[in-house]
C-alpha cells in the first residue's frame, strides 16, 4: 500500500557523497523526511526519497557538505508526461477505454439454464418476440416484466430468475417435474378395463369396478377384465340400478413376446486417407468470414476447431476464430464375422430387455437364436414376460344389457 502511494506521489533514487553523509541522514530524519532502501557502495550512498522531500534537500546538503544527484525517477508524475508524448498510444488507450464503457451498456450474451421440456429454440423465439436479443441496450430490458412474461407464457415453469451479470443476461428457470394433471371429463357411461395382451392372469388388485376374470384365467387381447358398470341389488337379489364408474385395477398378465432383430452381413467403414486441408475462419456474432473454397475432396468430413479467448468469453464478446479441417476418407465395405454379429445383436437385445425392465416388465425366460440368412444376420425368439395390462374403453349400454344377461345365465 505504501509502495502504491509512493508511486502515485512519485519518488527518486538518489546518490549522495561528501563530507558527512551520516549527518545528512540524521538531519533528514529530524526533518521527518522518509528515506528507504539506503545502501552504501564504496564512498557513495544510494537511497530512495519522495519527490516532495527531494525538493527540501538543498539546505541539508549544503549544511552537511554532501552532494546529491538523481539516479532514477519513478512514479506517476514522471510517467504521465512521458505518456503524453506518445499521442497514438494515448489515443488508442482512450479509444479502448471508450470501447469498454460503450460495450458495457449492451447485452452480449444470453444464457438459459434449467430448461428440459422447453427447447432452446422455443425459448429463443420467445425472447425474440419479447424484443430481447443479443446487442440490445441494458436499459431497455425490464427484468421483472420478462420474468412475469416467462411464467405467463410457459405454465410449466414454476420459478424463474433473470439477472444481468456484466454484459450477460442469465435466465434460470425451474420446470414442474410432476406432470400437469388436467381434469378429464367424467364419462357418463363409465369405462371398462380390457386386456392389451393375450396370456394368463397372474395377479389382480381391483380398486374400482366389477372384476370379470380371476387369477389363472387365460385372456385374449380385448377381453373384458374389470367392468365399469356396478350393479346395485334390491333386497330380493334383483338388480335395481347400475352405477357407472371408471374401472381401476392392477392386473398382471403372463404372455409371450416375439423378439426379432436383424443385422446386415456387411457394413461400410470410413477409412481416412490421411489427406487433409484446413481453412481459417473468423466469427463475429452469427456472421462467419472465411476464404471461399471449392469442394476439397470427393468424399470428406469436416471438423471445426474453434477458439474463443478467455477474456472474450468472460466479457461475453461474440468473437471467435478457428479452422475448418477437411479430412478425406473412403467408404470400405467389410463383412461381420459370426462373433461380431453375436456381440452386436446381443448388445441390442440387452438394450431391449433393459428398456422393458425400465417399463416395469418382469422377464421370466427368454429363448432367442442367431441365424445367418443370405443378406443379414437375424436374432429371433420368444421372451416370456409378466406385465401390467389394462386399457380403458367406454362401456356401452346395449352391450352391457346382453353381457349382463349372459352373466346371469
Amino acid at each position, binding site marked *: 500500500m505504501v509502495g502504491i502511494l509512493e508511486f502515485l506521489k512519485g519518488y527518486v533514487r538518489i546518490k549522495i557523497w561528501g563530507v558527512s*553523509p*551520516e*549527518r545528512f*541522514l*540524521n538531519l*533528514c*530524519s*529530524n526533518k*521527518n523526511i*522518509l*528515506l*528507504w*532502501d*539506503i*545502501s*552504501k557502495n564504496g564512498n557513495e*550512498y544510494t*537511497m530512495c526519497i519522495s519527490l516532495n522531500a527531494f525538493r527540501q534537500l538543498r539546505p541539508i546538503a549544503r549544511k552537511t557538505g554532501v552532494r546529491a544527484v538523481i539516479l532514477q525517477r519513478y512514479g506517476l508524475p514522471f510517467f504521465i508526461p512521458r505518456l503524453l508524448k506518445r499521442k497514438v498510444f494515448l489515443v488508442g488507450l482512450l479509444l479502448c477505454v471508450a470501447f469498454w464503457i460503450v460495450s458495457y451498456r449492451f447485452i452480449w450474451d444470453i444464457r438459459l439454464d434449467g430448461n428440459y421440456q422447453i427447447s432452446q429454440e422455443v425459448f429463443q423465439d420467445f425472447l425474440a418476440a419479447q424484443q430481447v436479443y443479443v446487442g440490445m441496450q441494458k436499459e431497455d430490458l425490464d427484468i421483472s416484466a420478462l420474468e412475469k412474461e416467462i411464467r405467463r407464457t410457459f405454465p410449466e415453469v414454476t420459478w424463474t430468475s433473470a439477472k444481468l451479470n456484466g454484459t450477460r443476461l442469465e435466465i434460470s428457470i425451474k420446470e414442474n417435474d410432476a406432470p400437469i394433471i388436467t381434469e378429464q371429463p367424467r364419462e357418463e357411461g363409465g369405462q371398462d378395463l380390457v386386456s392389451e395382451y393375450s396370456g394368463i392372469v397372474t395377479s389382480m388388485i381391483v380398486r374400482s369396478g366389477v372384476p370379470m376374470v380371476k387369477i389363472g384365467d387365460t385372456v385374449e387381447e380385448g377381453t373384458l377384465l374389470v367392468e365399469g358398470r356396478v350393479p346395485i341389488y334390491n333386497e330380493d337379489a334383483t338388480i335395481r340400478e347400475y352405477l357407472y364408474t371408471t374401472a381401476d385395477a392392477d392386473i398382471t398378465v403372463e404372455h409371450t413376446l416375439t423378439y426379432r432383430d436383424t443385422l446386415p452381413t456387411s457394413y461400410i467403414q470410413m477409412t481416412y486417407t490421411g489427406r487433409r486441408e484446413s481453412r481459417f475462419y473468423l466469427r463475429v456474432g452469427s456472421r462467419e468470414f472465411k476464404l471461399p473454397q471449392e469442394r476439397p475432396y470427393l468424399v470428406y468430413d469436416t471438423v471445426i476447431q474453434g477458439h474463443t479467448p478467455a477474456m472474450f468469453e468472460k466479457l461475453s464478446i461474440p468473437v471467435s476464430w478457428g479452422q475448418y479441417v477437411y479430412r478425406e476418407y473412403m467408404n470400405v465395405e467389410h463383412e461381420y464375422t459370426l462373433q461380431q454379429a453375436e456381440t452386436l445383436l446381443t448388445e441390442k437385445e440387452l438394450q431391449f430387455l433393459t428398456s422393458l425392465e425400465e417399463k416395469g416388465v418382469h422377464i421370466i425366460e427368454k429363448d432367442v437364436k442367431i441365424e445367418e440368412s443370405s443378406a443379414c444376420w437375424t436374432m429371433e425368439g420368444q421372451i416370456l414376460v409378466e406385465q401390467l395390462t389394462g386399457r380403458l374403453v367406454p362401456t356401452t349400454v346395449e352391450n352391457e344389457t346382453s353381457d349382463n344377461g349372459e352373466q346371469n345365465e
Partner: protein
Amino acid sequence: MKKKQADGPSRREAIIDSLSLPKDVLLGAIKVTLTGSQEAWIENYKGILEYTECQILLQGKNCQVCFEGQRLCIEYYTNEDMKISGCIRCVRYQ
C-alpha cells in the same frame, strides 16, 4: 552530592519498575527487535554515527549500539524507527 547522582537513576528505575511503566519511553532506552539474524528494528535512537556495509553505529540516549555483519542495508530510516537488513553477526553496546 555524588551519592545523590549515583542513587538517582536506580531510584528512578525502581519507581518505573514498581509502576510497570515502559522503560524505553521513560528512560529513553534504545529498543532493538531482532528477527533471526537478517532483520532488526530499532527505536529510540538519536542518529547514525557511522554506516558502512559491515557496521552500523547508532547513538542512543545513554549508550551506543553497534550492528556488525555483512551487506548491511537500511531499509528505511525515519525519526521514529529504522529497519536494518542483511547478515547481522553481532550487536554490541558501547
